[in-house]
């Protein structure tokens, strides 16, 4: 319903979208950072104030997850390079691989949670403490955000299969990639935080 109107600077609704889509995404990312920032500061406050705080080793699966998500980011980015050079076939492949790696990441996280659980580290219930609940909380909410990322990669994959992208039109890919890199960065932050601070 946006009006198509002549304006002295940007001609169409399409131009406005081009101009504002990335800043909108960046600011949304800032607010997600603050959400997780709230929780990780909460970990520090709880750790400092609770006599019953305890630390534990992270499951090995989380390390695997880290490798998976880094790999997916690199591959997805390679897809963007290619479409900028006009090669859409690489993008098709790259987005599909990213999609698969995204799902693998979630599977790997699931094994991580299972591992924690079998070691007596519980998310809720009488045997849980805030120390054990926090690790589930941040990792689960990271995966929830990742689901949105997977949907966006799925859209990119479908659109690239339909040849909707070309050298001039890469906005959708870029948006998806920014968010995907952000999710990777967020995971690395959480991983290091849980490993060395919590």
């Amino acid at each position: 319903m946006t009006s198509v109107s002549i304006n002295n600077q940007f001609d169409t609704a399409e131009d406005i979208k081009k101009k504002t889509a990335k800043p909108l995404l960046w600011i949304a990312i800032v607010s997600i950072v603050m959400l997780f920032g709230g929780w990780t500061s909460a970990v520090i406050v709880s750790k400092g104030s609770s006599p019953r705080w305890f630390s534990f080793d992270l499951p090995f699966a989380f390390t695997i997850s880290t490798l998976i998500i880094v790999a997916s980011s690199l591959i997805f980015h390679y897809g963007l390079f290619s479409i900028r050079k006009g090669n859409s076939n690489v993008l098709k492949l790259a987005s599909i691989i990213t999609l698969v790696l995204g799902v693998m990441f979630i599977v790997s996280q699931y094994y991580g949670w299972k591992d924690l659980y079998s070691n007596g580290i519980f998310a809720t219930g009488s045997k849980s403490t805030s120390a054990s609940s926090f690790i589930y909380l941040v990792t689960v909410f990271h995966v929830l955000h990742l689901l949105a990322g997977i949907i966006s990669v799925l859209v990119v994959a479908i659109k690239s299969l339909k040849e909707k992208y070309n050298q001039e039109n890469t906005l959708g890919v870029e948006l998806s990639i920014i968010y995907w890199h952000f999710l990777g960065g967020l995971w690395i932050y959480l991983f290091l935080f849980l490993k060395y601070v919590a």
Partner: protein
Amino acid sequence: MSTHHHHEQDFLFKYIFSTDHKMISKQFLITGFIMGFIGMIMSTLFRLQLGWPGESFWIVDKLLGSWAENGVMAPDKYLALVTMHGTIMVFFLLTAGLSGTFSNLLIPLQIGARDMASGFLNMLSYWFFFVSSVIMLISLGVEGGAASAGWTIYPPLSALPQAIPGSGLGMTLWLISMAIFIISSLLGSLNYVVTILNLRTKGMTMTRMPLTVWAFLFTALIGIVSFPVLLSAAILLIFDRSFGTSFYLSDIFIGGQVLEYSGGSPILFEHLFWFLGHPEVYIVLLPSLGITSEIISTMSRKPIFGYRAMIGSMLAIAFLSTIVWGHHMFVTGMNPFLGAVFTFTTLLIAIPSAVKVFNYLTTLWKGNIKFSPATLFSIGLVSTFISGGLTGLILGDSALDINVHDTYFVVGHFHIVMGLSAVFGMFAGVYHWFPKLFGRMMDNKIGSIHFWITIVCSYGVFFPMHFLGLAGVPRRYYTNSEFPLFENLIDINVVISTFAIVIAFGQLLFLYNFLYSALRGPKAPQNPWDSNSLEWTTPVEHIHGNWPGEIPEVHRWPYDYSKVDESGEFVGGNDFIPQTTPLFQNEKNEKH
């Protein structure tokens, strides 16, 4: 040259699911006002109880029904009403109602944009707000009553559903409503920031923007960094309440029974809550500061004094507001050194605040002031900002605060500095931009009477509260007449409550003026206040896309009022020069 064509939109998309910022602005205004009136009626009802404890009132009986047997409010319902009153006023009226209305109306119009960056997100922002309002109101009617732990919903009261009646379903709905509210607020803020940064018209540099727009920008930025932290706090609380975690709970007995929680800390909640809570008071206040800067300059026909200082002080306030939250926690057993740090950062805010007050006064000084209701309310804001700010110095100092913490001194302070200032700014904005919102003029005489009743009664209600607080009367008490200690304070409570009743009736004048003018008021001229800013160049009747032809180009800042040349004549012949006017020959291009 315009290819802009009107398409007939059906009713649904024009009035309900509109993506037009002007319509969304009106939606926010009306929803916000409805919530505000409900919040005000609640306060009047519990003022009846505080002024005349235990007495039966016909109106209390009628409005509250089973919450007030024989017309006397039940104690737990008192708590529910105070909680809902605070929540509604702070979030629904003065966050969504205020920012939602004026950011939406003025950002595109004043920077020269056809609409917000994303009309769709903007529409979502309103509808999330609407849904959260409805849920909040529904929570009044559920079993056990609405949330009763105060608008700050501290655990363990809020974390244990079995703690008090209001900790049950009412509290759950409060949390759901607020989570939706936060999403609404974030969607709105996102749009405001991106629109301001990316969609300004030609010539509209950042330092040619009206101070309103600067204020909305800072407000949105603070919201973006602090509301997610409240969301993080609320999510932890939801887990504690419903899923058996113990983020905020540790070793708790209830009714002699040990609960299975371990390792958490209720203080954690206070940190997270106040990391939003303090910035929130500036989210409430900054839009009003921007609105009144604009009005005071326009109506005193003088350039705003210290334009850059105004921006700088808003920036300083916005930044400082994120590092002072500890001043709400001086009595939590905080390390005294840390208390001193928070005292220091808190008192620093006095500097930019004083700069702003100074600039308001110097702008007014020797101005050719036109006393519209908007001007009066703006000056009213300057007054409350000073008188409420002064008691802030006392509360910000940890050594002093410990004595008056959680007393009526605090209630007096925050109502004056935040409640009154923000409400006055909002009234000022509505009176000033009513012609832009509804294409008609409000009645000035009724407006002025409304102002005088409001300001006199406001001080009548909140000023005496400081004395109650100094005498030790705690806040959130159902009655404070049952303690021998406070016996000789009963008269003060009667005075406060009387003023509270009068102020509530006074608002009916506004309501009448608003509704009557919106439907029957005289048609507004193009530029009723001889103002410089861009919104007055758009047609009085709203059109999609704001300007029928090209968006005008901007050539100067918005505060060229009463500009004279060397011979003492007005430059351009008028005491105002719209931003769209190119520089005159020989006119000096000044830096501001």
